[in-house]
C-alpha cells in the first residue's frame, strides 16, 4: 500500500495511505506534484502542512478515514449555499465527532478543512458554528464562544447606531 507522510506545523508526522490522503484536494495535488518532480517512483511523499497543528490534523485525518468511501464532493459545489451538503451529509458519527469539541477547535477545523480542500468536513463544521449564531442574542453568542466584549469607549453604542441605520436604509 502506497503511503504518504503528512507532517503538522508542530512537527508531528502521520503516515497515511495515499488513497486516503487523496480524499483531500490539497494532499492529492501535493502527492501528484511530488510524483512528477521525483526521480524515484518508489519514494514516499512527505508533505508538510505549516498551517495546521497536530491535534487538528489528526481530527481531519480521522474524519477522512470515517468518510473514505463517501463520494468526493467537488470543492466548488454549492459555493453559494453549502448548507445543502451539510444537511444531507451529517451522520450520527459526525454529530458524535463534533459534540465534545470546543468551538475554538471547530473554527480551527473549518480553516483546516478549507486549506486541505475537504468539502464535507467544511460543510458540517460551518453548519455547527452557524447554528450557534443564527437566532441568538449577543449575550448568548458570547457565552457559546466564550467571548467577552472588548469594545472600547462608546464603540459598542456606535455599532448599534450603525446597525440601526443599515436596517432603516
Amino acid at each position: 500500500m502506497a503511503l504518504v507522510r503528512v507532517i503538522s506545523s508542530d512537527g508531528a508526522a502521520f503516515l497515511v495511505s495515499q488513497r486516503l490522503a487523496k480524499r483531500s484536494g490539497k494532499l492529492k495535488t501535493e502527492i501528484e506534484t511530488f510524483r512528477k518532480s521525483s526521480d524515484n517512483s518508489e519514494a514516499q511523499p512527505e508533505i508538510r502542512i505549516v498551517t495546521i497543528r497536530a491535534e487538528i490534523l489528526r481530527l481531519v485525518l480521522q474524519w477522512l478515514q470515517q468518510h473514505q468511501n463517501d463520494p468526493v464532493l467537488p470543492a466548488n459545489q454549492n459555493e453559494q449555499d453549502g448548507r445543502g451538503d451539510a444537511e444531507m451529509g451529517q451522520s450520527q458519527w459526525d454529530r458524535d465527532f463534533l459534540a465534545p469539541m470546543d468551538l475554538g477547535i471547530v473554527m480551527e477545523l473549518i480553516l483546516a478543512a478549507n486549506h486541505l480542500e475537504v468539502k464535507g468536513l467544511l460543510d458540517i463544521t460551518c453548519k455547527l458554528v452557524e447554528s450557534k449564531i443564527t437566532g441568538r442574542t449577543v449575550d448568548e453568542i458570547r457565552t457559546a464562544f466564550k467571548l467577552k466584549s472588548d469594545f472600547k469607549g462608546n464603540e459598542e453604542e456606535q455599532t448599534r447606531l450603525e446597525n440601526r441605520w443599515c436596517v432603516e436604509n
Partner: protein
Amino acid sequence: MDLVRVTPQRPEDILPLEVWGLILDHLRSPSDLINCSQTCKGWAKVLELRKTTFLMPQVFPLLYAYLGPTTKTNEEDESEDNHDLIGFINYQEKEKQNEYAKLNTVLQMRLVSHSWKESVDTFYQDHDAINDLGFLKHVEDDEIPLRPYTFGIANVTKLESWVSKNFSPDSNPFITRCVVYEDYISPLERFTLYGGEPGAPELEELQVLQRQLRTSFKTLLESFGSQIWTIQLFFITTDSSIIELYRLVRSYLILMPNLKAIDIFGPSVELEEPGTSFKEFLRNEPMPELAQLKILFVSPVTFPISIGILSQNPTLRKLSVDTNKQEVVPLNSIRGIELPELEQLSVAPDSKVDLSQVQNLVWQNLKGLRLTVEGKQLKDVFGAVSASSCSSSLEHFILEVWNAHVHIRNDMELEQPEWHLEQLEHQLELPVEQRLEQPERQLEQPEQQLELHKLKKIELVIHIPFVLETLDFLLGCPDLQEIDLVIKISRKEYSTSNSVIQFKDCIASMQDSNIWQLLPMLKRLEIKTTVIEGVVRGGRTVFPEKTYVFTRAQSDQEVVPLNSIGDIELPELEQLSVAPVSKVDLSQVPNLVWQNLKGLLLTVEGKQLKDVFGAVSASSFSSSLEHFILVVWNSDVHIENDMELEQPELQLEELPAEQRLEHLERVWQQLEQPELQLEPPEQQLQLEQPEQQMELPKLKKFHLEISIPCELETIDFLLGCPDLQEIHLDIKISSKKVNTSNSVIQFKSCIASMQDSNIWQLLPMLKRLEIRTTEIEGVVRGGRRVFPEITYTFTRGQNGKITSS
C-alpha cells in the same frame, strides 16, 4: 570552539505558561495570533480561549455562505429566471432579499466583539462585487452587474436621517465602504417621475432640492469621506453645465482620498471646444490623484470627467468602458493616456468596437479582455485579437457577439437553410413558397484561429441563432484550461469532416471528443445551448435550454514512467512488459532509453491506434523490436454494433431449413425477455483508418488485442514490418460487409478466407496468421444478440501453400 548542542525547548521550559499568556496578550494581529497558536502545544493552550476571537476574520468568509436563509432557488425557478429580463431582475431581488435576511445575523455578529465587527466589515469591503469587472462571474450572469452592497447608505436622499444620527467622527458608518450617489434631480427626472401630473414639483423646487442634496453630501464627505473606498456616481441628464458638473465631481473626489474604485455614469457630452482648451482646463483644475485607485468604470469614456480621472491616475489595473450606441469605444488609446499597469479591460455590452483598433491596443500586459462586438465576423475578431500586442499576455478572453454575420440555419427541421437572420422579419412577411426559394447560405468556417498562447479561459457568448460547426479556432491556444460557450445552436446534424476538433453532432457527448487530446491543459468545458427560435414550417418554435458541463477528472492512476525509471539504465533489457491496468504516456514512448529492446507488451487506454503506431515507430528500439504485444482499451477504434440490422433475413435464409425454426424460437424467446429491448443503433461514426504504419523493420511477432467492439477495417499498418512472421489478432469485429477498396492488404470481408489474401505476398516472411473474433453484441431487430467466438488460423507450409484451420 566547543560545539553547543541545542535541543528544542518547550515554551514552559523557558517561562511559565501564565507569563507567556501575558506576553501573547499584547498581540493584536489575527495572523500573528494564528501563527503563535500553531507553533507549539504550549502557546496553543495559552491562546485557547482567544481562539474564537482571532480566528473569526479567517473563518467568516467561509461561514458567510451558511448564514441566514438559503440563497438557492430550485432549478426550475433559476432556468425560468434566466429567460427574460424581468425574471433576471426578480432573481436579483431574491438575492437582495436573501442578503438582507442574512444582514440581521451579520449585524448581530458585529455587536459581539470588536474583532468580530472587524471580521464582518472586512468581508464586505473586500467583496468581489466591488473588485470585479465582470471577469469573475460568468458573462451571462452579470449583464446587470450586482452592485456592491451599500448597507447604511444606498443613496443620499435620506441625508436628514444621517445628520440626526450623530455618528462620532472617528467611526466608519459604511460597513461596505461603498456609497452610491445619484444626482438624479433633473428636468428629465421630473418629467419621468411626475409626467404632466398636476402638483408635480416645479423645476425651481427640484433645483432647490438638488442643491440641498449636493450640500448635504459634501457635509457627509467632509466628515467621513476618507472612510469610503468605492463610490458610484450617477448623473443623468442635468441642467448643470458640463464644467459645473466636472467641478462638482472634483470637489467630491478630493474629499475621498482613499478611493479604490470609481464607477461613474454620466451624460455623453463633450466640452464645447475639445483640444487645447480642454487640456488647459484639465491642467488648471485637475482631478485629484488617488493613490489607491485601481478600478475605474466609466460610461461614457469620452465624458470629460472620465478623461480627467484617467489622466491623473494612470496606474489603474482594471478599466471598464462603455459608450452610447453611436459612439465607438476608443480602444487603442484614450486621448493618448497611457495606462502601463492595466491588467483587465472590459468593454461593456452595447458599446461599439472598431476591430482595427484592437490590433493596435497599447496595453501590452493585458491579462483579461472582455469584448462585445456587433455585426462582425468571428474570424475578423479572432484575427484582430490574435494580432494585437496583448496576444502574448492574454489569459482570459470573454467575447460577446451580437448580430454577427454568423450564418444561421434557423429552419433546422426543414433540413435546409432558408435565410439570414438579418432578413428574418422581412422573410416572415413572405409566403412560405417564397421563403423556400431563398438561396442556401454558406456556413461560416472560422478559418482564422485564435493565436493566444497564454490563454487559459475563454468565454464565448453569441446572442443570435447560428450554427457553430467547429471549435477548430481554439487550436492556437495550447494552454487553454477552461471553455465556456453560450450559443444558440440547431439540432440538425451537419457534416463536420473538415473539422479537427470533434464538436458538432456530439455536443452532448463531448467527453469522447478529441478536444481533450488536442488541448491537453483543458480541464473544463461548458456548453450552454440557449433558447433557439427556429422557424419551422412557417411558425416559430422554441427549443429548450440545456447546459452541458464536462470536466477532466484528475486521474488517481499513476502513469508508468516509460522513458526512464529513476535514471536507472538497464542496458541489457530485452523485454519490457507494462501491466494491463497501468497507464502509459505515449509521448514518453519515443524517448525510451532501452535501445536493445526486443519484446514489448503495452496496454494503452483511450488512444488512437495510429498514435500508438507512430510512437512505437519513432522510438529508439524501433530497429530492434522483434515481438510486440499491444492491448487496446477504450480506444477511439470506432464501432458499428448494428451491423445485422440491415440484413437479418439474409442470414436466416442461409441457415439450413431444419435449423431455421429453432433459430426463430430462440429469437422469439429473446424478444420476450423484458431486458432485451430494442436499443437505438448507436450513432454511426467515421471508421478509423490507421494511416500511420508501424515502422518496425525487425518485428517478427505482433499480437494485437482490442478489448472493445471495434471495426478494424484494415491491417495495412503492418506493411512497415517486412520481417513479420506471426500475427495474432484478438479483436471484436463485426461481420458486416464494408467496402475496403482503399486497403492494400485484403483483410476485411475475407477474415474467414485470409488464405486467399494478398497479405502472403506483401509480407513474404509471414508464416502464421491467427484471427480471433470474440463475442460481440449486436442489436438485431428487437433484441441483443451475441455472436460466437471464432478463431481462424492460417499457416504457410514449407511448400509455400497456405492452409486454414
